[in-house]
């Protein structure tokens, strides 16, 4: 298949970027989206031109490295799919595809399509853990957790930290990311002792990183490659209220 690509090129965080046009002539519909970009990059390198920088690693939809806004959608047109799992069979021969980085104040562009998402790490550092030192754990089956609760916690824990929720939100809010972690640990008994501290500290750090307020439009849920649910945000809000009253 033949494709026209409009790709955002930007030298560095302080420099202005712009769209550049490229065309790919012999793409296969069985290629993944990133393989199509590899294919483009090989041809650029052979001509001595700079390859397009983009983040990727596992290419199985689990490491959360890949990003890209494709035709206006974080991770492209398919629901519940990370860019690395998107295949060219979802596009048509002759299509024009616009490829941009995730855009948010808290995610500065490093180069081209590669952005800095370390703000998420700092939010985790603020409270996304259970305080238990190695060697200090009780026997695993001493903590009973019902199947439904364990599965709910697992659904929240499935977040890959890619930041699509932020890229999709008009306020660039990180509520879905933060709430998924808060929910996982609030649902489980292990997370109980530091429940209030955790939610307060994580939300405070989120604000400090300049993520916006929740827009309540649910675009984060629609863009999430792991289909993390909005109910996590509701739970985060409840946890904040609970923290104010109980702790």
């Amino acid at each position, binding site marked *: 298949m033949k494709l026209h690509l409009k790709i955002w090129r930007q030298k*560095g965080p302080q420099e202005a970027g712009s769209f550049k046009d490229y065309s790919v002539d012999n793409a*296969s519909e069985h*290629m*993944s989206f990133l*393989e199509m970009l590899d294919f483009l*990059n*090989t041809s*650029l*390198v*052979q001509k*001595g031109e*700079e*390859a397009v*920088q983009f*983040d990727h*690693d*596992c*290419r*199985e*939809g*689990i*490491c*959360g*490295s890949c990003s890209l806004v494709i035709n206006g959608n974080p991770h492209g047109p398919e629901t519940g799919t990370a860019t690395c*799992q998107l*295949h060219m*069979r979802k596009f048509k021969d002759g299509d024009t595809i616009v490829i941009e980085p995730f855009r948010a104040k808290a995610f500065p562009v490093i*180069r081209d399509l*590669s952005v*800095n998402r*370390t703000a*998420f*790490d700092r939010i*985790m*550092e*603020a409270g*996304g*853990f*259970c305080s*238990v*030192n*190695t*060697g200090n*754990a*009780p026997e*695993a*089956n001493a*903590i*009973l*957790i019902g*199947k439904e609760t*364990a599965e709910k*916690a*697992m659904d929240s*824990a*499935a977040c890959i*930290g890619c930041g699509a929720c932020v890229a999709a939100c008009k306020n660039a809010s990180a509520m879905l990311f933060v709430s998924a972690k808060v929910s*996982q640990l609030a649902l*489980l008994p*292990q997370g109980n002792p530091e429940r209030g501290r955790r939610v307060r500290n994580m939300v405070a750090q989120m604000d400090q990183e300049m993520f916006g307020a929740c827009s309540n439009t649910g675009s984060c849920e629609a863009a999430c490659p792991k289909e993390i649910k909005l109910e996590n945000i509701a739970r985060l809000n409840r946890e904040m209220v609970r923290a104010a009253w109980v702790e």
Partner: protein
Amino acid sequence: MLDSKIPSGPIDQKWKNRKFESNLVNPANRRKHTVIVVGTGLAGASAAATLGEQGYRVKVFTFHESPRRAHSIAAQGGINAAKNYQNDGDSVYRLFYDTIKGGDFRSREANVYRLAEVSVNIIDQCVAQGVPFAREYGGTLTNRSFGGTQVSRTFYAKGQTGQQLLLGAYSSLMRQAGQKTIEIFSRQEMVDLIVVEGKARGIIARNLVTGELTTHTADAVILATGGYGNVFFLSTNAKQSNASACWRAHKRGAYFANPCFTQIHPTCVPVSGDYQSKLTLMSESLRNDGRVWVPLKAGEKRAPGDIPENERDYFLERMYPAFGNLVPRDIASRAAKRMCDEGRGVGPTGLSVYMDFRDSIQRLGHATISEKYGNLFQMYEKITDENPYQVPMRIFPAVHYTMGGLWVDYNLMSSIPGLFVAGEANFSDHGANRLGASALMQGLADGYFVIPYSIANYIGGTKLSPIKNDHESAKATLAESQTRLEALMKAKGSQSVDQLHRKLGKIIWDNCGMARNEAGLNEAMVSIQKLKEEFANDVRVPGDNQLNSELEKANRVADFLELGELMCLDALERKESCGGHFREEMQTPEGEALRDDKNFSHVAAWEFTGKTPKLHKEALVFENIHLAQRSYK
């Protein structure tokens, strides 16, 4: 002969004895000692977090933007532990026995026993961190079965066990970062090891964003940088997984052990075209409910659903009735290859076999199968555009894991004092074949429970003179790194790094893959020599010295070329078949691997000399488990 420093005493007392004999570092003194951890997968993150908790000053390096993106995250199926929650005959000793046998008697008894021993503590630790393992309605933990065992000892979190365990270790790591015991250097890659007076004293790191090279000194260095499966270009490893940190350490004096022991995983999505960038694993757990088969006749053209039961060959069940579809990986992979060699492979290329869930869906229902494997089925459908609930999956073996790695003693210390190696990066526990769900176990055992003792023992018992960044060795190492990178930048050839890397992968896959022979290995070594010259003369690395993926790849592929050559040499030298290393010249009449315990019951540890590598041997002594031909029939 190498000294593996195995503690004295009976097998179940060795680890206790070592812990008691071990030197310790006073809690107040620990903050005076800096430890560098390279890599933030299960082994690295768990080691760093634990050392941070204990009060050491820890510097953590990862080439990823965040520690959470390390490749451990992609592990699907589960983690073994000898909890015997199912009351089905499991014990520490049985896990030990299964692992030694699964590894085809090429691993070290004492290490494997310790691994089985601490496996139970790992599950406790992970649960306490909030890892959402699968559970029964009553609230207790549940298990599933994996290959090469007859008990159910695998703990799991849907098909995302690696992700959940890594996020657990990552959360502990970030907690320590918040407490300032750990400093994290993300998007920074180790490019060399600093060795002073024969001891590892630091690293040179390259900041991938700015291109800057910096010196970091320390009292000990831990490499937890994963395996080298990407030598093959196509593997189930993440695209950026690489062997450079280990290879640079090797060139500074760390021995490389059993490099030819690579694991070819039987159940991966088959290759679809020459643009393919990587291969995707379908978890071994699927073999609990999926039946593997090929048509009875060669050249069968009918759709799988149209082939009647009596014209199907469920070859694993036929050949290995005791273990059926759950034979170890090396055995399942070779059997699948044999079917394809007989012309009975399926799919457009004839290089795949079916894994069929029809019977399980009938027996257990769509909902149960979807609950167990939903995300894997979805992943398969995204890649192939076929629905595995309706048509059988097509699978083929692919490179997945490397049992070989830097040589370490019982304390996980390499042949360079002060350099420790943990997780897949070392060679220690899996022999010639790793059992499913044991990689996660080993990574966390090393990081949470072994490395902390080893570091205390080393630092507490070694005189370490103070060292500054402007030490002569550090300056010289920095200058060498600079020169090497500049040379790569100057290359103005006509081929991209990937093109050359694919060529290397093909040479190794064809000659040092699922089956090896003397002629092929000799030929491969000549081809790699030529490819090295081609790389030096014809690679093209455009762009600048800042964030530049082409430069990063070139730097790594240069090392893969050298490592690939050593893999072939090691495979050539090991004139026996064992586990994943199958020399065609040495097989039983039934086509199974034929070991030669008299001549090859040893670890082959290679020393870098600049010319022909020098072979050192560590004898493997089996005091507890009787050496026998593996049988899964």
